């Protein structure tokens, strides 16, 4: 399988914090990987580095076989990287429909917008009911749906999702993960950052465990699920 996204010995800092220290990983075509770790482990920082929102201190990131170099965030998005940040990244002042339109507009696409909307509204009927409402007035769960719907209207090569379960009720979390599973089965490469360990490991093919900015454990999800160290590292119950 071809690698679509990878990092070698990546160092990232966030203000005074050296948040990520020498991390290497790869995401292959059609694969789903999860990065799990406690709050402050550096997960979100990695995501921000991957989409060029912050510049790496050292190390290399490659996207679709090319080094990231000085490419801008917006170029990466146009080249097929969709990063759904923590807090969903919907645009509050635009309507639901306009949010989808913005996502639809950025890349050449031969389906008409109305036609592209159809599968989205089939999948998320709640969004169709609220299509002319401002995104900022949606509930947390609905905003997450809207964020995920952008991956449906204009499927990216690589989908980066930061904490899809954050602040959602269990029912909503399940719904978000069903949508992710749908993207996965359609062949999209997905990279997931999560604190909801079990959900993430159930979805992902492989996973990386991050602690204090370093990868301490990696392997197939099933192996990790059966290892107690994961849970330990997670609850910080060492010592």
């Amino acid at each position, binding site marked *: 399988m071809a690698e679509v996204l990878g990092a070698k010995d990546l160092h990232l800092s966030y203000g005074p914090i050296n948040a990520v220290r020498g991390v290497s990983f790869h995401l292959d075509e059609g694969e789903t990987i999860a990065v799990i770790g406690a709050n402050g482990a550096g997960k979100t920082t990695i995501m921000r580095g991957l*989409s060029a*929102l912050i510049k790496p201190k050292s190390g290399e990131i490659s996207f679709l076989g090319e080094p990231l170099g000085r490419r*801008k*965030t*917006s*170029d990466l*998005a*146009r080249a097929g990287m*969709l*990063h*759904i*940040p923590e807090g969903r*990244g*919907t*645009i*509050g*002042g*635009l309507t639901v429909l*306009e949010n989808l*339109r*913005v*996502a639809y*507009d*950025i*890349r050449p696409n031969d389906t008409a917008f109305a036609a592209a909307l159809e599968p989205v509204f089939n999948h998320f009927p709640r969004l169709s009911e609220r299509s002319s409402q401002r995104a900022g007035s949606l509930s947390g769960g609905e905003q997450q749906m809207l964020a995920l719907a*952008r991956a449906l209207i204009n499927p990216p090569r690589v989908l980066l999702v930061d904490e899809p379960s954050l602040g959602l009720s269990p029912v909503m979390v399940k719904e978000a993960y069903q949508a992710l599973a749908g993207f996965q089965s359609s062949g999209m490469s997905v990279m997931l950052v999560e604190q909801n360990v079990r959900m993430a490991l159930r979805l992902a093919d492989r996973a990386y465990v991050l602690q204090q900015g370093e990868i301490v454990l990696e392997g197939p999800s099933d192996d990790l699920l059966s290892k107690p160290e994961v849970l330990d590292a997670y609850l910080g119950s060492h010592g």
Partner: protein
Amino acid sequence: MSAELAQQIVNGLVVGGMYALIALGFTLVFGLLDKLNFAHGEVVTLAGFIAIFSVNMGLSIWLTIPVVIILTGAVGIIIELLSFRRFTSKEGHSVSALSSFALGIVILEMVRLQWGATPVQLDIPKSIYISGTVLFGAPIPWIKFAIFSISIFLMIALHLVMSRTKIGRSIRAVAEEPTSARLLGINTTLVTQYVFVIVSAMAGVAGLLIAMQNGIVTSDVGFTFALKGIAVMAIGGMGDMRGAIVAGLLVGVLEGIAFSIGWGGISDVIVWFLMILVLLIRPAGILGGGRQAETRV
């Protein structure tokens, strides 16, 4: 309604339309960058002199419109590049405010070196100031209707661009959530440039309309109108486009009324007083759609 009052209200609406056009420029830039563009007013001045130049070159006054739009739009790009792009630090908005102010004076000085500081006659047929109609007993020349129609047309066009087009959506997306917009593939630098071209071209047309209304162009016209435009923007709510339009027309009419009851001398104070009042009592503007200071101490 007395003829005098009707006359002043119509005048107020015409001038208010220009205030609104200029205020829209301030409000769009503020909405996008949280910054004030103090060079905006000098674009208005410059446009008046571009009109004089083109008319003297033999173009009809209507054909100068595209010339003004293109040239002032280009000036917008320069303003963005020199006074806004690099200033992203915490003090950025103060630095941008002062830098654009200085740039405005540079533009003004260049205009003065070329055309001098005294009023210059715009060479168009005098008849357009005379023929007209009578409204509530007050004679209103057609040119006023034409000017008002052009302002309204531009506002509607801007509204359509902002609500219906890809560029408009991108502008609103960047104004709302710059980071999310970047993650969605919107080039924020490019969007900022678009905004400066649009607002400068609008200010340019406003300058042309002011020149047409007065028949003369002076180098201090931009300064006067820009100050009024800033006040109008604040009254309408910083970043609120509808608010800017309503506030522009409102201020124009208020001034008209002030003149008709003999308060002309202090009409400026009325506007600024209104602005201070609005900022203190209703910082989100008269329609409540602007940005508010969110810190709580």
